[in-house]
């Protein structure tokens, strides 16, 4: 008790940013923190339960659902990593995501360079054609994609996913990169042209370094929906060796539903890398995804 008083009293009159914090403000601040902390708990707790349960035994799940496991039981993880194709699902997800993001960035940067740098007939028209795709979910086009991939023989092929994700990523990327291209002062071009650079060299040497923030935003913005997509793999991927992490997890969930530690181990394996990636780059993620939402 003494300690509470000891720490509280000097704080009541502490000068913060030139303003004196009065006791009433201090109490509301404490209440605000209490609410915000409580909500943090609401967010974290389910994920905590997932990780904790994955280390329990089946018996512990039933008898002690809340406490920490007595000893760390890794049998769930053994089942997930050794008896299933989870590592292959990971490889597929990484491949599809990396290739799609690279394609999105390359084709969108090229198109944005043309749209942002040059005035030509049809410029506005093409720009709005791209923009029209920004708010419409591509899954509404799945029926015809079904036909297209049937006739191209791309059923049960990761290339089908890559093509869909690339098309889906183009509108927002063109939007954000074109805006950046337009901001680059024309004087920089003229200087480069005098030095004898052609259009291609100007793009690579002058524009590309300056476009990096826009390219990063677009990559982060598309990473999440592509990495997490379940819809298109569900419809287009059939063989186990081609499943992505969400689709593999769904099948696994159906098969092992009664073996909780194993199911939670699978869910943990499926989300922890994404969470770590997010925690390392949370500022960029929040900025990129919010910008996408606001501008989309």
């Amino acid at each position: 008790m003494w300690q509470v008083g000891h720490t509280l009293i000097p704080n009541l009159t502490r000068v913060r940013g030139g303003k004196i914090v009065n006791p009433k403000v201090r109490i509301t601040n404490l209440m605000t923190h209490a609410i915000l902390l409580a909500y943090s708990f609401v967010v974290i707790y389910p994920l905590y339960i997932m990780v904790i349960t994955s280390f329990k035994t089946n018996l512990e799940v039933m008898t002690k659902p809340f406490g920490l496991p007595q000893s760390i039981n890794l049998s769930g993880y053994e089942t997930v990593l050794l008896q299933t194709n989870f590592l292959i699902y990971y490889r597929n997800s990484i491949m599809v995501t990396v290739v799609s993001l690279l394609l999105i960035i390359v084709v969108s940067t090229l198109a944005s360079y043309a749209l942002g740098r040059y005035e030509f007939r049809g410029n506005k028209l093409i720009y709005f054609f791209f923009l029209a795709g920004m708010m419409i979910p591509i899954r509404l086009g799945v029926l015809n994609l079904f036909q297209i991939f049937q006739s191209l023989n791309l059923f049960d092929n990761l290339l089908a996913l890559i093509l869909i994700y690339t098309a889906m990523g183009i509108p927002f990327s063109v939007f954000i990169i074109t805006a950046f291209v337009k901001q680059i002062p024309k004087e920089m071009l003229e200087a480069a042209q005098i030095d004898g650079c052609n259009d291609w060299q100007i793009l690579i040497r002058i524009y590309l370094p300056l476009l990096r923030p826009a390219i990063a935003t677009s990559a982060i913005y598309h990473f999440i929906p592509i990495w997490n997509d379940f819809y298109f793999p569900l419809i287009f991927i059939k063989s186990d060796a081609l499943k992505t992490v969400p689709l593999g997890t769904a099948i696994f969930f159906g098969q092992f539903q009664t073996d909780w530690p194993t199911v939670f181990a699978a869910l943990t394996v499926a989300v922890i890398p994404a969470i770590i990636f997010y925690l390392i780059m949370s500022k960029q993620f929040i900025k990129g995804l919010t910008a996408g939402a606001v501008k989309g």
Partner: protein
Amino acid sequence: MAKKRTRYGIILYLLPAVILYTLFMAYPLIMSLGMSLYEWNGYGPMSFVGLENFKRLLFVEPFNARFFNALTNNFKLFAYTTLFQNVVALFLAVLLTKKLRGTDFYRTIYFMPVTLSVLIVGFIWTLILNPTWGVLNKGLELIGLVNLAKPWLGDPNLALPVIAYVNSWQFIGLPIMMFVAGIRAIPEELFEAARIDGCNEWHVFRNITLPGLMPIIGLVMILTVVGNFSSFEIIYAMAGTMAGPNYATDVLGTLFYRTAFSATSAQPSMGMGAAIAVFMFVIICFGVASWSYIDSKFNKS
């Protein structure tokens, strides 16, 4: 000569993006909606049937019952999401914009589930909500509130709001961040003036924060419409493709999937599926159009 070369250059730069976007997004979208005028089971020839699919969807049993049920549920999902996600987000955003330490920490936490897979979030919650072994009911038992323990996903009256809550739990970070940005954009003098005039917190919120946030609130609502009317994964994960119990959680996205791809009731009918997609498309376009209208009005004033 130089000019001609530039023109070829422009075409070459544009071509890859135009081809990929047209072939795998614009064209499939239009053709899929157009498929609503045909009868097709996924293989073999398509036959033109005019507006037959729409007629069946709106007037013929049992299709119309399923369709209107899904449509109603979709509007309910929207209402629940507005309440559980957007209203709560607004409250938390107001708290986060008070001059406090550690708001970065809270924002990082609140945003985290946004980056996770909808499907996996659905699975995690399905296990937490499990009526016999789930942590939620066990916890209620532990604190003596055993009467509140429910078969959360098995009760037709509870399943949809519970799923809406899980969806809100995951995505609340987005509206929070948008509201925080919106509140920060309101000039600080307005808040100070109001406080000097002796306004209490509620009055400040009612007279300054809320009017200043109107454009952002509009945008958040539109994004909620787009998200809700194309949702599928969360229902699939928590209630299955049959969207049980007894279709209580069926939305247009799940009805579309069942109609077009799975032969649970009858032959899969891509044409009927396309007709459902047309309704989803119209609702989403209506949302987007009304947002552009509101936005342009706000930008003028």
